């Protein structure tokens, strides 16, 4: 039952994505200043929003784990964080390609990209620390605390880097205001990517569940021996 839901969700997301891509690449006109490359915005911007959505979900689940000791919450936290990091990387890579096309350089240190990079590092630390803790309860507890620290840092990082950039101006990736048909395309792609992202989180949840069962069976086997 659950598996079917994941497949359906993923399929719907993929179909929506294909439909969107048709729209984005073949229907919408080129933008005045940037030419064809601006189309990357339909992936670049939603990826960022989705990444932070999943980081926020991870925060909620982390707090839930600390409050209720629910391992389900812990599993959702790690799954969301992983998928969030993937989308953050999509944002970084598309931003890099965009910058290369517009400015001729692969990395522009634009304040948003820099901040996103710091966020990726924050959550990469979370993902690297988790396997280093063997006891599941301790793993959940420490990861939860780390997730809280990380999410609290996100707004501070954004503000500080943005403020720094106003004093050390550099290349900026202009997103600007969008005409209606483009704004709608952005929204549709956001929904499509969100569906795919959620499907990925659910898949990851299952593998986390299986992993934990294996761990506990192993522990049980060692004791009986």
């Amino acid at each position, binding site marked *: 039952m659950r598996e079917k839901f994941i497949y359906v969700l993923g399929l719907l997301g993929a179909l929506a994505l294909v439909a969107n891509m048709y729209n984005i690449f073949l229907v919408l006109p080129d933008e005045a200043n940037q030419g064809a490359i601006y189309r990357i915005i339909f992936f670049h911007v939603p990826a960022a929003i989705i990444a932070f959505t999943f980081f926020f979900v991870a925060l909620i689940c982390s707090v839930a784990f600390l409050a209720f000791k629910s391992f389900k919450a812990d599993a959702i936290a790690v799954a969301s964080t992983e998928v969030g990091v993937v989308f953050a990387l999509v944002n970084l890579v598309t931003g890099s390609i965009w910058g290369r096309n517009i400015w001729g350089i692969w990395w522009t240190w634009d304040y948003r990209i820099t901040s996103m990079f710091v966020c990726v590092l924050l959550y990469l630390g979370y993902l690297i620390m988790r396997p280093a803790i063997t006891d599941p309860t301790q793993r959940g507890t420490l990861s939860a605390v780390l997730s809280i620290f990380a999410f609290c840092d996100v707004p501070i990082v954004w503000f500080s880097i943005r403020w720094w950039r106003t004093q050390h101006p550099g290349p900026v990736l202009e997103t600007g205001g969008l005409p209606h048909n483009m704004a709608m395309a952005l929204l549709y792609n956001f929904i499509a990517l969100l569906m795919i992202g959620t499907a990925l989180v659910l898949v990851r949840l299952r593998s986390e569940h299986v992993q934990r069962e294996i761990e*506990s069976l192993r522990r049980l086997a060692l004791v009986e021996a």
Partner: protein
Amino acid sequence: MVAVDHVWKYFGDFPALRDVSLTVPRGACLALLGRNGAGKTTLLRILAGFSKPAKGTVTVAGAAPRDLAARAKVGYLGHGIAVWDELSAEENLRVFATLYGVDRAAIPVWLERVGLLRVREGLAREFSRGMRQRLAIARAFLHEPELLVLDEPFTSLDDRAIALLQNLLRDARARGASVIMSTHQLREALELASDVVLLKNGRVAHAGTRTQEMLDDPSWLYVRYGEG
């Protein structure tokens, strides 16, 4: 003094403690027996306030083990000696005196009792193993705890330290303190114990007073419950 009520503790999905209930009245000495992995250390760590049970309640002197009021009354002796190597014996005890709100005047008294007064200014890292153990004992008893939680205290103690510990435990019980200790040194522990609990795979397999049979044959309990 201590009430453990239907406590469960998990490590992931693995239950280390299953529905454990026991009480330790004032002045009693409970010997916690069981194979390695039976859950003895897990239970003692909960009593000392290092971890929390997943289900069930634990009260120490009427409060949760993590409460400051409860912690002030508990003396813990674990596997490590829990003293700082770069500090002298006296300085070590002075830190714990401050943490437990004990008058400094008690320090030389305790150093004397564990036979370390002469070397009070020696650094802990210069001590022999036996001296370090005795310092650890002083640390655990310094604040005249109402509950002593001892995890395999007789393992790796030399004869002098074992005799010292046995005397201190008797004195503590005489003034109304309770003791709960896990042990593999059945003879020494059963001599002191008033009650015995056997843990098997996280469950309480046997709980009762210490009987003459146990004294005569320290491994009686293990044999009875098929632990070999």
